[in-house]
């Protein structure tokens, strides 16, 4: 194994330890990842912008602090990729949309500030579906991202860039955001770990809003412990976000280190399976449940009858909020402006700007949401969706009286081919069938790799859902599963991924 291989395939936890011990420098680690990005990103297109100089400067600063004897956090000096939905002062932020092309935020999001404070080194910004609206990263205004397992397939979405960067060894860690599955579904189809914390545990301040009541940022990583370490860094109360919860962050790192599921009651959601689910997905899900059972967990079957309405509910509430959140992109203050010829009235400039700047999916959701909130339709659409949302939350409450966590497949199928679902929005939306309920109820949820589907050899994700604030249980289950399955596979799932052209990874 070459040295560069060890630097880019190591876990974030290992890198953090070795940097703190001054066995390796943060600058070396960052440089190795920048090299891997250069070598592989033409094929993957995970990044929209790479912040080379600032990353190296941040790495050098961390090295200097460590050399001066400072004791920093466990991830100090470790590189990270950030979804291009988070404002990072001085670096262009596009939300994957042409309408924000060229905009450089004058401030940083709370998550970015927490990363900086913890000494993490931001490599750059990753690709996403436009305003995080999509399940394949194909609605990005800057071209699609490719799945490192099979470059003809999508890495999921909206956070396909973050998941692809992590699974292509371009970064050991990434930040994603999850409104209906945008962390978990890409993690599932790229064989990585992705967690959506309880709504309100991670500040939304400075994260470009898609649907405010559903959006939540979270970690993407290659191991359960790495995800937990990152979770620990970004979670916590923020007075700048009114919806931020002022409560202690659950001991996610402790849970990831323990992985002790003896006596833990695991509820398998009966609604997620059958028609529309790939046989390999169902097979690996069952095996994961068996592995957990072997590790000492009690498995029960739990019905959440309203989950079948989650998709419809989501596609009323989310577009309603989108239609309002995306109003500000009108060409008046920042980003794209079209048709300002000195004659056009302001309304015309707004119309032309929005017509040109937004892609098809953004327009579709703006129009859907505008209808859902319109006089005469509000009660039937938005109003009844809110009622259903309450019923779904009650399903969770009832289920968590019978078990400690709920589990299901993370997504009904493995990675689909680029272009396969572009013309069929319903097929695209169904990618998030299993992940949406957790967003509607605001509970914690995560996806962990549980094997390859025999029919196509592509990764399958196993979803774990926890009660609100009990995010530690996600990592307890994830760590147990990881321990059982890596023992069975003789290594990590990602070790089975084909090598990318130009990659610095040598096996």
């Amino acid at each position: 194994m070459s040295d560069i291989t060890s630097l880019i395939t190591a876990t974030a936890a290992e890198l953090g330890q070795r940097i703190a011990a001054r066995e390796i420098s943060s600058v070396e680690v960052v440089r190795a990842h920048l090299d891997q990005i250069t070598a592989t990103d033409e094929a993957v297109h995970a990044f929209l912008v790479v912040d080379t100089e600032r990353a190296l400067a941040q790495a050098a600063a961390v090295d200097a602090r460590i050399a001066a004897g400072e004791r920093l956090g466990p991830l100090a000096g470790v590189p990270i990729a950030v979804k291009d939905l988070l404002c990072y002062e001085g670096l262009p932020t596009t939300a994957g949309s042409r309408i924000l092309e060229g905009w450089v935020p004058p401030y940083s999001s709370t998550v970015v500030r927490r990363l900086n404070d913890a000494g993490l080194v931001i490599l750059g910004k990753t690709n996403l579906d436009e305003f995080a609206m999509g399940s394949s990263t194909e609605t990005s205004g800057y071209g699609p991202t490719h799945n490192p397992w099979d470059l003809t397939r999508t890495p999921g979405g909206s956070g396909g860039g973050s998941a692809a960067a992590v699974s292509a060894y371009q970064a050991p860690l990434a930040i994603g955001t999850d409104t209906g599955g945008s962390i978990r579904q890409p993690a599932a189809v790229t064989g990585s770990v992705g967690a959506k914390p309880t709504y309100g545990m991670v500040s939304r301040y400075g994260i470009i809003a898609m649907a405010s009541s559903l959006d939540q940022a979270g970690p993407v990583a290659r191991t359960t412990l790495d995800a937990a370490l990152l979770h620990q860094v970004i979670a916590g109360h923020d007075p700048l976000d009114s919806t931020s919860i002022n409560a202690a962050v659950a001991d996610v790192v402790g849970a990831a280190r323990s992985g002790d599921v003896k006596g833990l009651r695991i509820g398998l959601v009966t609604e997620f399976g059958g028609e529309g689910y790939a046989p390999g997905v169902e097979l690996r899900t069952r095996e994961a449940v068996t592995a957990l059972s072997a590790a000492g967990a009690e498995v029960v079957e739990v019905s959440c009858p309203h989950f079948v309405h989650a998709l419809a509910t989501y596609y009323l509430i989310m577009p309603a909020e989108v239609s309002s959140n995306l109003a500000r992109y009108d060409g008046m203050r920042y980003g794209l402006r079209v048709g300002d010829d000195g004659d056009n009235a302001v309304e015309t400039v707004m119309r032309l700007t929005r017509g040109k700047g937004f892609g098809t999916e953004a327009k579709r959701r703006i129009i859907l949401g505008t209808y859902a909130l319109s006089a005469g339709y509000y009660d039937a659409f938005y109003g009844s969706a809110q009622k259903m949302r309450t019923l779904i939350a009650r399903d969770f409450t009832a289920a968590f009286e019978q078990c400690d966590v709920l589990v299901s497949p993370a997504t009904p199928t493995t990675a689909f081919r680029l272009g396969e679902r572009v013309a069929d929005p319903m097929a695209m939306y169904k990618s998030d069938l299993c992940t949406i309920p957790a967003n509607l109820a605001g509970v914690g949820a995560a996806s962990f790799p549980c094997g390859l589907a025999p029919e196509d050899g592509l990764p399958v994700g196993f979803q774990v859902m926890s009660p609100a604030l009990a995010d530690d249980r996600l990592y307890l289950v994830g760590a147990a599963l990881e321990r059982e399955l890596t023992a069975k596979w003789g290594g990590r799932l990602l070790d089975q991924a084909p090598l990318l052209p130009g990659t610095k990874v040598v096996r």
Partner: protein
Amino acid sequence: MPYDEVVARFEPVLGLEVHVELSTKSKMWCGCPTDFGGEPNSHVCPVCLGLPGSLPVVNRLAVESAIRIGLSLNCDIATWCRFARKNYFYPDMPKDYQVSQYDEPLCFDGNVAVEVGGLTYQVPIERVHMEEDAGKLTHVGGAGRISGADYSLIDYNRAGVPLMEIVTKTIHGTGAAAPEVASGYMAFLRDMVRALGVSHGRMERGNLRCDVNVSLTPRGSSELGTRSETKNVNSLRAVADAVRYEMMRQGAILAAGGRVKQETRHWNEGGYTTPGRSKEEAQDYRYFPEPDLVPVAPDPAWVDELRATLPEHPALRRARLAADWGFTEREFGDILAIEGALELIADTVAAGTTPAAARKWWLTELARRANEAGVALDELPITPAQVAEVQALLADGAVNDKLARQVIEGVLAGEGSPAEVVASRGLAVVSDTEALDAAVIAAIAADPEAAAKVRDGKVAAAGALIGAVMKNMRGQADAAKVRELILAKLG
């Protein structure tokens, strides 16, 4: 048709929507200052500019102010309510939606009694809700109007300043007094927000802005007439005038068998209304609960605490002060006629001055200077405590009336406190008897004719000698004392 006839044939029905700009130090959702008059776009941040990713946080003082306003209007206070987004595109709104309240106002179901000509009218209050102000557009070219302008400039300094909207239910039974009930209600609101200290309450500055809804119902009919809404009526007099004008205008239309159009109208300086944009295309604001904010749930104990510390009702306070001070109705009326004078006089009296002296200072010398400077009385850079200090110097004989005016001039010029001005300008009355004696002797010597007359008992002739002494002393002498000295010497 004469006004009396309009009132005889029709019953006016009013509805008033008043926006109150709060005087909190910071904006509704961020820490930016609300100060008036900074450089354009200097009081802004990612939040009030609505930059992508920014989020609002409620200003607790604004909520407190709204509750205190609601309590003063005898409203119920919601135990749980939400903000809502009002969606529409306009360049002065950074987010292209206004955060307001929709069907869950913070305060609701109140009432206010307004007295006109010895009769009391009930003004029922529908709601008081919180919202944010927008930025300010300046249209360049094309006569400063949006249509025909070459381009427009936007200043977001006002964007996000907290506003309260106070909405009445329909007001019935006012008859001929409708205009005065409307302006009396506005006067009450103005006095109330000032007494609460929640707003500067200056109508001419737009701190209070009134939209006046008027309709007429034929007497004996229960059918509500079509209303007009006159926007941004910004003085008490204009509120009364706008009601009267609309009553007359609508009365003439209805009497001629016409139909009143439902429309928005503009108030013009000349005292008349003109049609604004007609609401053919009804706007659908697509209100929905603001997901970026948590519900407001005021603790009932806190509300009780606020209720217990409300200031005296402005009308009751006025009655009490009138009785305490013992002015004639006319003298007291003069005080009420000048905005802010009542508070200033009350504070000056509280600082130890007699009501008569306080009234004299504020209504004559200081009112004149405010007038000259083109500012409101309470904007003069002198405090009631300083006026009281000047009056105390005068009462002690440390300065005379003329010197006291000079002290005030010095304080207004920023030269410091009254004592400091007296010291730096050397304005104290000369009580040094030797210097006065010398001046008296010199004056007698210089005008033997006058001195002789005084000696002969023509005391009035002393005036010339007193004048000479005062002139010699550059006014810094106590004229009564000078007179005493002269008479003693010539007696």
